[in-house]
């Protein structure tokens, strides 16, 4: 195994990670907890950069820290003193009761968590003792040339394990269908003032451009449909915060098509290949690059629409609900 000297930066990152996680989990103020969780996600992205995982670092910064945080903050904004954040007084009283009654329970659960951590450490120690298992990594690097892309992560996601990504997009589709079934969108935001509006005017086009760049570059460098979709969704979130009610989402039937685009394009390509006598999603090497880009473009739109609908909390309401938009931001 390649041993690596521990760098000062690694120590600082690890201390920040542990203290941010502990701070996010131990505070009783929900808003503070969400913001600390977002900071934790950003530091985690830096740590993954250190561990040579730039694809994952991009996704964590955009989705794990950015959009998860936006979702949680949007939920808090709607119900500041309800079940989500906990009404300040009763919860504190309830907590006091809990601490007096459930000390044994707390102790037991804490011990259980320590045991889980110890088990994980033991399992990892075993794994590290055996040294790196590179059979899969070798298989990937040997077949990479025929995959149509040169970024191994994209090759795994869109070619070698395309089934898994198809099912992942189906999970996303299920989640968004659940969200659409549960209710209408939250009320919108106030129209932006001049400063924010001028930021939106150039930031949103730049974000859309960046999404296209990430999608294209994913074939040979860090990037891909997930990072691009998240960036596109971030553009829509900015639009929504600036008072655009539908956040740039299409209406009606087009929206349904966009949501289903990822799974749909995957199935279309897979079934067409079956008809042509190839295995399901077994691309001919000559077409692989193009087919991957086609699927990724559709997947990017579907991922972005899903994340935006999650942020809205449901289908954008018809324009008649304008009176609901007079809420403070």
């Amino acid at each position: 195994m390649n041993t690596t000297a521990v760098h000062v930066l690694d120590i600082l990152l690890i201390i920040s990670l542990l203290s941010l996680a502990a701070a996010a989990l131990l505070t009783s103020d929900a808003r503070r907890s969400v913001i600390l969780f977002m900071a934790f996600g950003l530091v985690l992205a830096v740590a993954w950069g250190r561990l040579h995982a730039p694809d994952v670092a991009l996704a964590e910064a955009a989705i794990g820290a950015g959009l998860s945080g936006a979702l949680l903050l949007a939920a808090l904004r709607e119900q500041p003193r309800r079940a989500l954040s906990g009404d300040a007084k009763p919860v504190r009283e309830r907590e006091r009761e809990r601490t007096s009654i459930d000390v044994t329970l707390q102790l037991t659960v804490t011990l259980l968590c320590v045991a889980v951590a110890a088990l994980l450490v033991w399992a990892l120690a075993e794994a590290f003792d055996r040294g790196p298992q590179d059979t899969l990594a070798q298989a990937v690097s040997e077949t990479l040339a025929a995959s149509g892309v040169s970024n191994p992560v994209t090759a795994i996601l869109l070619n070698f394990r395309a089934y898994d990504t198809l099912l992942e997009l189906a999970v996303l589709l299920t989640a968004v269908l659940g969200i659409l079934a549960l209710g209408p969108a939250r009320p919108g935001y106030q129209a932006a003032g001049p400063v924010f509006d001028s930021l939106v005017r150039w930031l949103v086009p730049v974000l859309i451009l960046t999404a296209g760049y990430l999608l294209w570059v994913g074939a040979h460098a860090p990037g891909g449909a997930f990072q691009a979709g998240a960036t596109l969704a971030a553009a829509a979130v900015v639009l929504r915060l600036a008072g655009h009610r539908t956040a740039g989402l299409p209406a009606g039937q087009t929206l349904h098509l966009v949501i289903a685009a990822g799974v749909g394009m995957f199935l279309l390509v897979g079934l067409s290949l079956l008809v042509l006598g190839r295995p399901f999603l077994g691309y001919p090497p000559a077409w692989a690059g193009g087919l991957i880009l086609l699927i990724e473009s559709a997947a990017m739109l579907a991922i972005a629409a899903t994340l935006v609908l999650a942020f809205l909390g449901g289908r954008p309401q018809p324009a008649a609900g304008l009176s609901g938009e007079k809420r403070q931001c």
Partner: protein
Amino acid sequence: MLTAQWLYAMTGCLIVALGLRTALLHAVLLHRLIGVNVMGAGVFLMLIAVAYRGPGVAPDPVPHALVLTGIVVAVSATALVLALARRLTGEQDNG
């Protein structure tokens, strides 16, 4: 054998335990949800640390693909939980 990789993996274990404790013990839904998310982040950190092969060497891309999938599934699950919670409080207010 003290390597950066090993330290990051241990940090992942600790973060999993911290998140699990909050997810099980906290009274407020939002904190529990953040606990589950932190726990997931700990698992991702372990996987990425295991995939690391030292400076200048290409890491194992398979765990990277797994984690990328995991991040997206985690955010969609979080979104669905928030939508369910919203509907639940709405029902309680009406009923």
